[in-house]
């Protein structure tokens, strides 16, 4: 899963994605998905910044911060980024495919 982020101010387009290397680098920077609710102020910007590692590694941190401040529909973006962040891990460890995944379902009562 990728996100196309368009900066209309400067006419630039960024492709946001997490690879296993991004996840490894983000862990090195102190990011932890399990702590995102405890420390949102620290973790959310890191999550956003980490999405640039795969395709825009050398983008200036100030530019990333500016994009982070200006981006629209932040809540939806963060939840999408969280889903994207899980992808490298799920692709390795989640063996459920097709009908197998539908064999066990759950719902909230």
């Amino acid at each position: 899963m990728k996100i196309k982020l368009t900066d209309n101010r400067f006419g630039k387009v960024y492709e946001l994605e997490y690879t296993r290397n991004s996840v490894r680098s983000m862990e090195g920077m102190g990011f932890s998905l399990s702590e995102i609710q405890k420390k949102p102020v620290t973790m959310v910007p890191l999550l956003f910044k980490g999405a640039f590692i795969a395709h825009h590694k050398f983008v200036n941190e100030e530019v990333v911060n500016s994009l982070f401040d200006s981006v629209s529909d932040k809540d939806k973006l963060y939840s999408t980024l969280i889903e994207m962040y899980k992808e490298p891990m799920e692709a390795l460890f989640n063996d459920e495919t097709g009908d197998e995944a539908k064999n066990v379902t759950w719902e909230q009562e």
Partner: protein
Amino acid sequence: MGAGVNTPAPQRISLAKQFEDSCPFYMAIGMTYEEYWNGPPELAKYYRESYKVKRDMDNQKLWLQGLYFYTALCDVSPVLNAFAKSGTKPIEYIKRPIDLDEKHAQKTKEENEKEKMNAIKDKMMAFMNVHNDKIKKKKGSDTDAGD
């Protein structure tokens, strides 16, 4: 004291460590280092699926090889019997490889049956020709005797 008081806090799982641990396996099944670390994440899933397919194919090959060995042993078994009569010969080994394509196998089966039918037909024709010749000869000798 509650049951969970002395339970140690769950250790934080390092994804980087898990990725590093899994890397050799994925490289062993054909994924490059670059693909593993910097490629699209879902690529690993397809490599894993393709590995399963390859493993199944290898298993099929080995099974088939076992079947050929078994067939060969069965064919030669009459000779291996210690109490076999002198002059016992092994059964001829299958002429063609076992057909794995179902449609093709059906076609081959039909062709074999047709061949058998043709052989029977040829024998019948040969028998009829011999019989007709005999009748002709008999008729000829009868007419000669009548003259």
